[in-house]
């Protein structure tokens, strides 16, 4: 029934070579709880046979030097970030048993966000939270978990509700989330409670081995140096001042077996380029030019209108078609926080040579979908250039004799076709007719390649061709 252990756990190093100085003893103070806790963890690792698989993520605080002692994979995290680091480790190596060991300043203050979200994601990791209500390593400053009234080096008058606020209860906080599988608070106050802590430690690690998800054990632990009390009184101090604030209980204990996160299948990482896979072949691609069939040498086109008019899309379609004809292409959009209704414009360069700047200050062509676009860009059109205006919304065009001005009632034309949304395709068709920049079939081939449905493809073709006819009519008029 009883087994008295005299030997050191195999998961501890025999000598603490990494520590320097005295390699026989730890750096913990007399009466500190860390020694007991780490012993409980090491024994559990031994008993479950997971020493090789175990990875400790140790953050800043007195626990940072656990890698002196624990003979497991060791990773030091920055202050508060252990649950994020552990997330990265566990997702990369799902077979590893990944655990964090964090103090209260680390976990509840600076790392509050990381623990909250790791818990909420139900990360399949184990977190040991050593709560001694104080910043131990830095010399006894007030922590989020310091009880009201306690004097520390940064609450010399005692923590007050009004100034510092009341202590944070992390188990209770995390227990509001659906993600965690297991949450319990224990205390290192006497042999009986230590055995409870032992049980909780084992459960939290076993949960991970068995794939139950996120496990969290808070351990109320003595820090006589930080509290400035004699070591022999420290356990009693926990009982008297901490346990009333932080009740000992199980807050969550779910038996999930389907929580193991999908990790990385490293065997698939053979460097096979994903995007280089050939796209799904076009079902019935219209005949598109593989060599430039358009007649243009160098085109600097600005398309401009309201957000929602399909301005950017029309530019993109033209760019796709031009690329299929072997032209060099750049398409650069205006972008902003507005999702809809703002202004939208894009610059599109087509060239047989490599393109230098993607921006256009003097366009060779402007497709203006609305009146503000005229004010913004029409003055800059190069002499001999083209202004193609959507007559449905553009009522006034500039009085310039040195450019070609064509007006197309694209909204009315699109509406007649039964698809007011095709305004942009009507404008695009007119542009193709006027400039011969790109073969319309190259553009339609791009639509097919992108998986455009046959009905939509046909609708786009009708709109483009209606735009072309309208351009011819407008030129004749």
């Amino acid at each position: 029934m009883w087994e008295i252990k005299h030997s050191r756990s195999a998961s501890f190093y025999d000598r603490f070579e990494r520590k320097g100085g005295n390699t026989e003893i730890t750096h913990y103070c007399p009466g500190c709880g860390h020694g007991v806790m780490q012993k409980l963890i090491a024994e559990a690792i031994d008993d479950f046979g997971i020493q090789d698989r175990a990875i400790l993520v140790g953050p800043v605080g007195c626990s940072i030097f656990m890698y002196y002692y624990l003979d497991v994979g060791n990773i030091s995290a920055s202050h508060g970030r252990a649950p994020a680091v552990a997330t990265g480790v566990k997702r990369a190596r799902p077979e590893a048993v990944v655990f964090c060991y964090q103090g209260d300043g680390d976990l509840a203050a600076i790392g509050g966000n990381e623990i909250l979200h790791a818990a909420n994601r139900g990360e399949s990791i184990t977190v040991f939270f050593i709560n001694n209500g104080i910043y131990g390593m830095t010399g006894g400053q007030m922590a989020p978990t310091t009880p009201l009234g306690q004097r520390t080096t940064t609450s010399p008058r005692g923590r007050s509700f009004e100034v510092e606020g009341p202590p944070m209860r992390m188990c209770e906080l995390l227990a509001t989330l659906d993600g965690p599988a297991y949450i319990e608070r224990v205390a290192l106050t006497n042999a009986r409670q230590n055995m409870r802590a032992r049980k909780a430690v084992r459960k939290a690690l076993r949960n991970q081995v068995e794939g139950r998800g996120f496990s969290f054990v808070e351990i109320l632990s003595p820090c006589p140096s930080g509290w400035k009390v004699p070591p022999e009184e420290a356990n009693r101090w926990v009982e008297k001042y901490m346990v009333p604030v932080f009740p000992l209980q199980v807050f969550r204990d779910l038996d999930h077996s389907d929580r193991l996160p999908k990790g990385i299948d490293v065997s698939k990482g053979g460097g096979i380029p994903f995007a280089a896979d050939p796209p799904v072949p076009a079902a019935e691609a219209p005949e598109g030019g593989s060599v430039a069939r358009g007649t243009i040498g160098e085109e600097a086109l600005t398309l401009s209108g309201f957000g929602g008019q399909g301005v950017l899309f029309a530019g993109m379609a033209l760019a796709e078609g031009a690329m299929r004809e072997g032209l060099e292409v750049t398409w650069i959009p205006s972008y902003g926080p507005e999702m809809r209704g703002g202004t939208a414009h894009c610059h599109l360069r087509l060239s047989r040579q490599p393109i230098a700047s993607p921006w256009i200050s003097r366009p060779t062509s402007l497709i203006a979908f609305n009146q503000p676009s005229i004010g913004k860009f029409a003055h800059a059109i190069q002499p001999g250039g083209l202004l193609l205006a959507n007559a449905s919304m553009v009522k006034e065009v500039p009085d310039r004799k040195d450019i070609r001005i064509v007006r197309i009632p694209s909204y009315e034309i699109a509406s007649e076709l039964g698809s007011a949304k095709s305004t942009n395709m009507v404008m695009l068709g007119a542009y193709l007719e006027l400039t011969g920049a790109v073969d319309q079939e190259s553009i339609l081939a791009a639509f097919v390649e992108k998986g455009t449905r046959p009905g939509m493809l046909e609708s786009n073709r009708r709109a483009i061709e209606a735009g072309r006819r309208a351009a011819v009519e407008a030129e004749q008029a």
Partner: protein
Amino acid sequence: MRLLMKGNEAVMHGAIAAGCRAFFGYPITPASEIAEMASLLLPDVGGVFIPAESEIAAIQMLFGASSAGVRAMTASSGPGISLMQEGISYMAGALLPGVIVDVQRAGPGLGNLGVEQGDYHQVVKAGGHGCYKTPVFAPNSVQEMCDLTIHAFDVADRYRTPVMVLADGALGQMMEPVTITTSAAPEPEKPWAVTGTAQTRQNLITSILLEHEKQEMHITGLERTYAEIEKNEVRWEEVRTEDAEILIVAFGISSRIARAAVAMARAGGVRVGLLRPISLFPFPARRLRQLAGKVYAILVLELNNGQMVDDVRLHVAGITPVELMRRTGGMMPAAEEVAEALRKMEKECVGNQA
């Protein structure tokens, strides 16, 4: 085969081709498409995407995945990169490879979403604490968004260092044809990683060295690595420098404007050439010095308040006049204006010394 895509999309296609199998990200304009592509593409190649709770957490998740020996990355824009600086410093200190892409926007503070290059200092000069540097590669096309991301993974593993790709909103949002390439070097073995196995059990990933002597030795080791990087990893591009009397120096998207300006100025008879640093650390210092000895004057074009110009002046060391032309806040100089500045510079400098 050529595909038309945004620079941000090209980053992720390159990353996956390079064997990246984990992405941890937080949304921010104009970088968000990188995370979106990661969430779309990674699961299909056996990888993982986690929407992190903050950039602070994202970089630490990258720290964790990299510690475990997996090629991983994150991406953000200036405000998020500022938050990541803590983690980048820890990665540098712990000798962890990883790729961080900065798609810059205008700052300081929230600034706006316009195109700016104001993160040069915080990215090239190691914006986190302590004695470290990170290699930085600055693409100027959508193709290079892909290629330099791949290259960044290779360099990161070769030298065990975080590597940054410094792009901007224009490169992230613009579309150009791209051919997806593959990693030049096979992913190396990582015997130092902590992978949860008997072979790696005694490995330790940390950046803490309490003894001052050991910390100094560690930094000396980092310096040796950086010296190797400076020897082997300098990259730049030149345009029409062979007979140049005036040199324009620009990186990233502003080099595209500079390139257009060079063509315009050349058409007007000005003998001007472009030096485009592709690696910002290591900086193409030697080549710059050589060219500085041949030209009458140098114009630095930046979309910031003058940051790379500090490095240009440092390496030119006064042997040639260096002038700065810049716009900020998302404003863009027209290529014509830059060409005009080059013409003016030729008139003033070449005339005077001839």
